[in-house]
Structures are given as C-alpha cells and as structure tokens.
C-alpha cells in the first residue's frame, strides 16, 4: 500500500484488477447467504432435532425386541416405557452418548444407544440396540446418512442391518468381502466397502464404550428391583 506517487486514475485502475474488487459481488452474496442460512438453521434446528428424537423413540421397541416382538407388543396394546439418559464414557476419548432404556412390565428389556461416526460421504448416525445386560446386539437402525445413493445407502436395508442382530457385544466386528464364515464377520456391501467398514467401526466403538456402563446399570437395576436376569 506504500506507493505514494500515484495519480488517482492509476489507483483506480490497479484497484479494478485486484481479486477483491473483482469478487466483491461474490463476497457480498456469500456473506448475505451465510447470514440467511444461519438464521434458517437457528429457527429450524430444534424442530429437526425433535423429529429425530421422535423417530428414535418410535424405533426403540423394534430395536430391542426385534420387529416381530415389537409388532406383538403393539397388537397387545402394551406400551414400553422409554427413559432417555446421557452417559459420558470412552476408552480413548470422552464421548457423550444418548441412551434410551426400554422398560416393559417393570423390567429392563434392553437399551438403545445413539451413536455416530464418519462414513464415506458424511456423518453416519446409528441407533444400536442391546439386550438388558448389554451382551448382544438386538438391532441396528440408520438414523441419518448421506452415502452414495444405490451403493453406500444400502446400509439402510433391513437385510444388511439384520446381520448385526445377535452378534456378541464383546467382540470387534469386521466387514469382509466374502461370505462371512466367523461370528465376528459382517458381509460388506458390494461397491460400498468403506460405508460397510464405517458402520462396523461405529458399532465397535459404541460397543466398546458402552458395554461396561450398561451392564453396570443393568445389574444395579436388577439388584435394586430384586429381579432375575431375563432369558430369551
């Protein structure tokens, strides 16, 4: 900026060729749209969060009892009590989980944990269902994902998610490209190995972080209520 011996038209000319001057409209529009989007987000975010929470609550019976069990409960017009709580835990770094405790007929039927992690395209949000003592996975649901349509988005499919049901929570799951032969293997989606691996990793982390706290809470509950562990 220290070029004092310039005439006015010269400065005008130089100004005209700077990037800032060329791009003033882009910058102005960017700030304007940025502000507009921020206010849209501020207004609508609570509503969107509430929608997600509602969906989570609706999914809890299915994730804990399985589709057939949830259906049976609905036809018998019995209701499940769902208590939300937050746990801060984690082996490597502290992570806060939103936990839904499913109680029916006075007993803890199981737990649903909300968790998320990086997928191929964007964050994947999952709901993982555990049985009452957090020994096995009872269900998996994809709450949000933006994976490649037709490939990664197949993590939504019931058949693929069903592979997780019944897996022991004490192991680390692996996505494999061949037919799974071991109990800790999940068949990866063809053409979407990264999405499949991401889901396995997110579930693994969730299991590792929550198995102990959930089991503790469950045993605490059963001692307090003097209840026996429920068998399948």
């Amino acid at each position: 900026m220290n070029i004092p011996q310039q005439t006015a038209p010269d400065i005008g000319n130089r100004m005209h060729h700077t990037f800032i001057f060329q791009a003033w409209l882009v910058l102005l529009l960017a700030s304007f749209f940025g502000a507009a989007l921020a206010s849209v987000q501020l207004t609508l975010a609570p509503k969107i969060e509430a929608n997600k929470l509602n969906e989570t609550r609706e999914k809890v019976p299915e994730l804990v009892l399985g589709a057939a069990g949830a259906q049976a409960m609905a036809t018998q017009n019995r209701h499940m009590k769902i208590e939300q709580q937050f746990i801060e835990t984690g082996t490597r770094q502290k992570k806060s989980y939103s936990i839904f405790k499913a109680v029916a007929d006075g007993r803890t039927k199981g737990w649903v944990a909300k968790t998320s992690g990086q997928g191929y395209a964007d964050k994947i949000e999952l709901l993982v269902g555990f049985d009452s003592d957090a020994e096995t996975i009872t269900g998996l649901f994809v709450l949000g994902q933006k994976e490649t349509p037709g490939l990664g988005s197949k993590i939504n499919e019931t058949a693929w998610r069903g592979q997780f049901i019944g897996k022991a929570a004490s192991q680390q799951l692996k996505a494999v490209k061949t037919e799974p032969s071991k109990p800790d293997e999940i068949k990866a989606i063809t053409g979407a190995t990264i999405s499949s691996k991401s889901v396995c990793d997110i579930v693994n982390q969730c299991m590792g972080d929550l198995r102990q706290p959930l089991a503790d809470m469950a045993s605490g509950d059963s001692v307090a209520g003097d209840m026996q562990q429920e068998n399948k």
Partner: protein
Amino acid sequence: MADQPTALERFAQGILPENPVYRQLLGLCPTLAVTNSVKGAIIMGAAVLFVLLCANAMISLIRNLLKPHLRIVVFTLTIAAFVTIVDRFLAAYMYQMSKDLGPYIPLIIVNCIIICRCEVCASKQPVFTAAADAAGQSLGFTLGLVSIASVREILGTGMLLGFRVMPAAWPDWVIMVLPPGAFLTFGLLLGAVNWVVAKKSASGKKHQGAS
C-alpha cells in the same frame, strides 16, 4: 436483445416444447431416482420450483452486476443457498419425505436445469420474465417426473398416491419401482414423445408444402 422471448413464451416453452425432461434431457439424475412414487415426484418438483424461482429471480435482479468470468460462481452460490433452505425446511416439516428423498434434495444444487435457466434466461432478462421461465420449466420438470412416476407406481405397486387403481389380481411388477424400471419407463416414454414430435413436424411440413 430484441429477439428474446417474452414472459409468456418462456412460460409456455418450458412446459412442453422445451420440456426439461423429454426435450432437453436435463436433470435426469432425480428423474430416474425419485420417480418410484408420485408423491416423491411431486415434492421433488415443488422443491425444484422453489429453488429455480428464487435463483432465477435473484440472478435476474443482479444480472447487470455479473462479470462473465465470475457468473458461474454466483449462480452456484445462489442455488446452493436456496437448496439448503429447502433441505432444512423438509427435514423440519416433512421429516419422512426428507428421509425418502435422501440426498436428492441436496443434489438439486447440481441439477443442470437450474444453472441452465440462470445462464439462458435469468442472466439476460428482467425479473418477471425470469420468474415465468422458472415456473414453466419447473412445471415441465414436474410433469416429466409425475408421468414417469405414475407409470412406475401403477405397474409396480398397483396403486396411485395410495389408492388401488389396478384390479386386485394384478401381480405387482416390482422391477418397475426398482432402478431398472426407471430406465425402462423413461426410455419408452421418451421414445413415445419423440415419435409424436416427429409426426407433428412431418405433418406440419406437409401442410406448409400444400399451402
């Protein structure tokens, strides 16, 4: 600029003569992807209408400030802002629909129809004409989507917008609601439209020759 079409011409052209789906073959990604239900097709059409209307109006208002080498950046910025608004709005008020349409709402950003209309019409003509153009093109787009979606939904599920239209004995052609059904239906409909257009223009020429 004297030979630019008027607002009414722009509006009418978008619906049939320059139909985005059948005549311009633009925006085919959502055309193939969200047409397995008529409801999804209508919502997609409405989303495109909102985005195109806002983007066209905005670009038209600032058309005299646009610099040739920066215009695409401005178009993309404008379109992205309005698409994000639609996306958030659907997630807040039509949550299930937003989940069904999945990434296709954010993908409106790269829908060629919108950037094409900004370039062809909005950056050259006044707001009213640009808005008429947006309305015509989105109606044409919706028409294209709904026509494909109707065929797919009826043949694939025997229903239309949740009402049974086929006899109960109809064996649902599941393939029609799956991706191959989109290609089959679109190909056949496109062929039919081309056939009609060719026939029309042939008879038009004959008439001209006779008179």
